[in-house]
């Protein structure tokens, strides 16, 4: 009721509240640094841009993850899709590094999509298996050691360099965001995605080839994970084992904090964007406070629960 009186739709509330929470994090962090060091690094544009640059990788993964969550599925193969793309891109090298890396991601997405859409295996378990296979392939490929390959110059430029003080990674993130928004808002595919998330049987009866759309969504998610992997390899100048492990759960958390329904069918991209910024800033404030890993995990979990208690509650089952 209160949300209606404020002129807010159900989809706007999460965005507004997460935005407010970002301000709270910034204020609390700044208060801490002023009290302890007498400076306010959190409010300096340079620092914020640097944090956003790190956030770009998570943002791109989350964009792909959101598409898959919107159709009511989930992609747990992101960690090793990301790592595989990075490892293959660095080991191929040369002008084909980036296309090969992205190709790996699209291929993994295609396998995921076929398994989920045509074999009807629950995505939770199929993508888990694909993740294990990718991990196995990469362990066999690298011999279990850290790969001795380096990122190409183009990858480094894309991920680590700046133009006019703005990191290139942010441009890539922005481009991905524009593409995703355009697809979700302006194309028939976007409408199909929301329709499938709401009721796949209804979408099928309405004439949508739901299985093809499902495959496309997984391909997009795999491609996004691969892009993040290629960029991350460029940022850290090399690929390494387990480089994707830190991206799966934060990506899901960012999507959900942004108001996307984990069961699919509802959510808007702006929310995911704000969810990513929230998680990145929360992480950086906690590291400024020198919070040990234990405290970080606890705060991380509590924040997700609190945010969802405020606006993510489901309907009561009454029939």
């Amino acid at each position: 009721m209160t949300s209606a009186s404020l002129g807010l739709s159900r989809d706007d509330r999460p965005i507004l509240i997460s935005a407010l929470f970002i301000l709270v994090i910034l204020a609390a962090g700044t208060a801490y640094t002023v009290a302890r060091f007498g400076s306010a690094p959190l409010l300096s544009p340079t620092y914020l841009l640097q944090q956003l640059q790190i956030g770009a990788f998570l943002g791109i993964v989350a964009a792909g993850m959101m598409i898959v969550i919107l159709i009511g599925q989930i992609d747990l193969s992101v960690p090793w899709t990301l790592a595989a793309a990075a490892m293959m891109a660095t080991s191929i090298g040369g002008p084909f590094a980036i296309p090969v890396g992205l190709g790996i991601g699209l291929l993994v997405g295609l396998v995921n999509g076929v398994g989920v859409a045509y074999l009807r295996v629950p995505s939770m378990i199929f993508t888990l298996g694909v993740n294990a296979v990718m991990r196995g392939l990469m362990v066999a490929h690298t011999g279990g050691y850290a790969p001795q390959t380096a990122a190409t110059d183009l990858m480094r430029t894309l991920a680590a360099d700046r133009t006019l003080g703005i990191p290139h990674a942010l441009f890539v993130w922005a481009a991905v965001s524009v593409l995703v928004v355009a697809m979700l808002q302006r194309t028939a595919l976007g409408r199909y995605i929301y329709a499938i998330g709401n009721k796949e049987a209804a979408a099928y009866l309405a004439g949508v080839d739901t299985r093809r759309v499902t495959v496309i969504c997984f391909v997009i998610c795999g491609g996004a994970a691969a892009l993040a992997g290629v960029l991350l390899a460029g940022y850290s100048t090399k690929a390494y084992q387990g480089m994707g492990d830190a991206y799966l759960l934060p990506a899901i958390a960012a999507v959900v904090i942004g108001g996307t329904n984990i069961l699919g069918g509802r959510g808007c991209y702006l929310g995911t964007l704000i969810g990513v910024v929230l998680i990145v800033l929360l992480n950086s404030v906690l590291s400024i406070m020198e919070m040990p890993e234990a405290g970080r995990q606890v705060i991380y979990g509590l924040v997700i629960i609190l945010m969802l208690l405020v606006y993510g509650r489901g309907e009561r089952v009454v029939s």
Partner: protein
Amino acid sequence: MLDDVAIKVRQNVGIVTVVLLFSILYVLYNLAHPKGFSSAVLVQNGNEIFALAMVAMAQTVPVLASGLDLSVGAVMTMVGCFASYLLTGAVGGTPLHLDIFGLHLALGTFPGGINGILLGIVLCLAIGTTAGFINGCIVVYGRIQPIIATLATGAVYIGIALFLRPTPGGKIDEDLNWALTNSLGDFAATVHIFDDGAAGWFAPVAWVPVPFVLLALIALLVWVPFRRSVLGRAVYAVGSAEGAAYMSGLPIDRAKIAAFTLAGFFAGCGGLFLAIQTSSGNADIPQAGAYTLNSIASVVIGGTSLLGGTGSAIGSIFGAMVLRVISFFFRIFDIAPLLQPLFEGLILLAAVSIGALGVLRVKNTLELFR
């Protein structure tokens, strides 16, 4: 009579398949093992299977209620870390204290000796159960989707585990470790019953590994009564049609809370055993994640539908055993360790894909979209 059997088999085709699969794999394993069919091999396998089997049982109950518990690995890890403080078995007890933000709080002395160990076990299981109960309350009263609620509480539990054990360590009473991770004969000798395990009537069962006995006891004394209770049936009903269960007057809120609480208890058993077996507490985040993911795989292999409503925790135990036996084979056949993760993944994919081939027989495409 024969028809009844046929119907029973058809109703439980998932669990029958996994039991057969496990039997075949395990007999092959023992035939290939130089010391196959011996108590030593059984004991070793039992120790390796127990924790995963418990976590798989834990995962089954929420899945039956069409939820998912992503915190089972975290609860297991947290309980293990608690156990490494509570089960030291030091004579004269252990002083408990809490160092937080520079404060030093003495919390009294934890009793030592056998009473202390029993109290410690009860406390550890209570901690696991409480963690599960909290999950259930957040899902039911917070009305947050189980998958995301347990993702968040899992982070909190791992945080608590890391707080307790920033680095692996701690200690478990040696007698407890010895008694629970060997055969029944060793157990009797350690706790001094049945003439230290030398009683004549005891000899035929002295070779049975304790972990398998514990597994059977937990399944028979906790899972079977629960499944036959009204609450247990309500869990199945919630999983197959929540709305219908509500309209039939079943206690759906209590059923869901019970499902998550039981999951916490089972995960706690797993964590307790893992700590006893390794004689230490270790807040290992990748290990917790691996156990959670393997628990989902075990549940699926064990014939429980991820959509909820059909399946059983017994099936999941066998699912976990199948997963573990597959990794035992790597040791026997000298498969390069580098290729093991690849084979594990391929076998998991093959298992779920073969199980899914039924979709090819579906004539009405609409039936695919449940």
